[in-house]
């Protein structure tokens, strides 16, 4: 039974349950909806919820468990003797699954069902499958083909059982809800619980996803450190991965990358924080309503520009300009990609973050603070400098740290603006690179996935994650600690 068919049937049952439960509730009080405990719509919603929620939960659980169960079944079917020499059980199992899928839904499915292959050899079936778009790890053999046929039959049967079970649960749920729909039943409270459940599920999905990301990073990082020493990763000052073919051991020290990341982020913040903060102060304290209504969205457009566009701007305009105007005449280098280029452009990108957040925070400082200061004979700028900015400082610090997190995680501007050469250098007109750029370059290309050169990307990613997490926690801490000073 197709899943789409099950979902359609569920929708129909849900709709039917809604209408019937609502109707029955109204009928139970003789058509006078005022005598119901809840509004009629709650009885309908209760019917739908009771019909759909358990059925959908069963469907999801079944679809998660079925593949595991089938894999187990294949493994016990295929004894070790049928394994081709030198191949692992996992590969054979996935071949079986692919063959079964090819037979089920590939271009061959129709002729297969018609029994055309009854006499064909496994090799012929294999060739036909490959022509039909199925990728095979090894030439098809008789035991694998048999297992695939078995797999296909079992899976079809299980699908049918699943469909019947799910629909049965839906019908039972709907029947219970409809039976309960009488005037005194508290349908509104049940729907309230249902809403709570929905919100909780949404919240836990976000949290579980984060956990999942961290866990996958942790596993791969642990894998990396089993192949590459911990101390060399953190304390080695050279970054020189050697890819297969070049030979020799890799030098995978994070320090040059970390240095590049922090250097570029620092320049970006030096550009973004004063400009962003001053424009926020101008917009919130001095600008008239008309100017503000134009200027604020305009600044925020900057935040909507994709970073690759900033990268192009760095590559084509800022880089050559800096080289020709400053670096070459001063003898500081003749590279168009430089830390300065990436930092400046990234700073421009961060201006709207700093200014928009700071603007909100400055606006949140109570008017009483301004009145108090002005009433003592302070000028506007004295008021801003001595009262408003100090009062808004925790929020501004939070905004700056958020901007820093963005700067540290930025990739495209760095690739196009600062190049990809890992280097420990103080000269801001030299090309350098960052952690994120190296993660991309280590994971792309034709490399062995199980080598330290590739796995190092996860260690780099985790380090970056820890740094930005630390910054975010610090930002939250500062904001919380000083938040309620003026109240």
């Amino acid at each position: 039974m197709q899943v789409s068919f099950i979902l359609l049937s569920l929708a129909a049952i849900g709709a039917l349950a809604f209408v019937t439960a609502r109707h029955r509730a109204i009928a139970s009080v003789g058509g006078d909806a005022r005598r119901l405990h809840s509004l009629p719509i709650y009885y309908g919603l209760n019917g739908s919820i009771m019909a759909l929620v358990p059925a959908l939960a069963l469907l999801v659980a079944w679809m998660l468990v079925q593949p595991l169960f089938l894999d187990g079944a294949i493994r016990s079917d295929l004894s070790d003797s049928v394994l081709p020499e030198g191949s692992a059980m996992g590969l054979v199992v996935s071949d079986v699954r692919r063959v079964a899928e090819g037979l089920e839904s590939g271009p061959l499915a129709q002729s297969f069902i018609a029994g055309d292959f009854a006499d064909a050899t496994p090799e012929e079936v294999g060739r036909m499958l490959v022509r039909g778009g199925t990728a095979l790890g090894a030439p098809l053999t008789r035991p694998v083909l048999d297992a695939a046929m078995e797999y296909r039959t079992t899976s079809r049967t299980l699908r049918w059982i699943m469909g019947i079970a799910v629909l049965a649960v839906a019908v039972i749920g709907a029947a219970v809800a409809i039976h309960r729909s009488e005037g005194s039943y508290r349908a509104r409270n049940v729907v309230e619980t249902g809403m709570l459940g929905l919100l909780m599920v949404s919240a836990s999905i976000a949290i579980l996803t984060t956990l999942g990301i961290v866990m996958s990073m942790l596993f791969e990082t642990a894998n990396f450190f089993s192949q590459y020493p911990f101390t060399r990763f953190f304390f080695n000052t050279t970054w020189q991965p050697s890819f297969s073919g070049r030979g020799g051991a890799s030098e995978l020290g994070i320090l040059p990358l970390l240095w590049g990341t922090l250097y570029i982020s620092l320049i970006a913040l030096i550009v973004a924080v004063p400009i962003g903060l001053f424009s926020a102060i101008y917009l919130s304290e001095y600008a008239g309503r008309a100017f503000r209504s134009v200027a604020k969205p305009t600044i925020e457009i900057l935040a909507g520009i994709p970073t690759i566009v900033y990268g192009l701007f760095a590559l084509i305009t800022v880089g050559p300009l800096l080289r020709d105007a400053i670096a070459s005449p001063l003898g500081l280098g003749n590279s168009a990609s430089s830390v300065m280029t990436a930092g400046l452009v990234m700073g421009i990108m961060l201006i709207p973050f700093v200014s928009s957040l700071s603007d909100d925070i400055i606006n949140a400082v109570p008017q009483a603070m301004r009145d108090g200061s002005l009433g003592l004979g302070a000028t506007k700028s004295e008021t801003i400098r001595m009262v408003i900015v100090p009062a808004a400082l925790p929020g501004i610090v939070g905004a700056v740290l958020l901007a820093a997190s963005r700067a540290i995680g930025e990739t495209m501007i760095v690739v196009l603006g600062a190049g990809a050469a890992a280097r420990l250098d103080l000269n801001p007109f030299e090309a350098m690179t960052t952690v994120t750029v190296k993660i991309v370059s280590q994971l792309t290309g034709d490399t062995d996935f199980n080598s330290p050169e590739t796995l190092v990307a996860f260690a780099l990613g985790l380090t970056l994650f820890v740094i930005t997490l630390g910054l975010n926690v610090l930002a939250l801490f500062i904001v919380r600690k000083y938040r309620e000073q003026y109240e």
Partner: protein
Amino acid sequence: MNDMRHVERTVRVDTTKITARDVQVFYGDTHAIRNVSVDIPDKTVTAFIGPSGCGKSTFLRCLNRMNDTISVARVEGRIEIDGEDIYDRRVDPVQLRAKVGMVFQKPNPFPKSIYDNVAYGPRIHGLARDRADLDGIVEKALRRAALWAEVKDRLSAAGTGLSGGQQQRLCIARAVATSPEVLLMDEPCSALDPIATDQVENLIHELRENYSVVIVTHSMSQASRVSQKTAYFHLGELVEYGETGQIFTNPQDERTENYITGRIG
């Protein structure tokens, strides 16, 4: 209104501190104050009373040009302090506000230490020669605001950590630290409990020795307790102005009488 201690009704000094003539205030298209003319004497407490929205706070804010900070507000007419037109183009509103201090309805200490709150004005206007001088100014202001005994051991604690009554007295100390000549108070006790109110009222009595105090209040008993002169505002007009005792015992205008006896407002 059981507590009608009509203390010290006589105005000791006859010199006029503030003179207002035909003052009009507009908020955009709203005519908030109409034709207000009043003479406020020196070293006296003058109370502005009247129902909400009658313009008494607006008029108070004209006296130190705080209405300038509201972009839609426009003031016409003539207001003089010591014979000098404060709306003259040569007058710097910032300097004016140092001379005419203001205390607001809700205590609004800055999120700084108690010391820095009081030292704020003197620092801005460069009133202290050195640190010791500033210490002296802060202590004097806190003593005058009857707060010194309570805070002298924790001057570096946050001003926002004080109780509501203490915060309002801190704001008064902050205002008197710049040695103003006039002190404007916009419902200074409306956010305070009766005990804190009593302390602030006692303070107003003492401040009268040195300053001309103008207080806006919703409490008629407060007006009768603390003030020597009372002005009754109604719908943007100054209805009646005179000795507090006379306003409360023998009002000339029917609207004043209705308000004071509790028939309206």
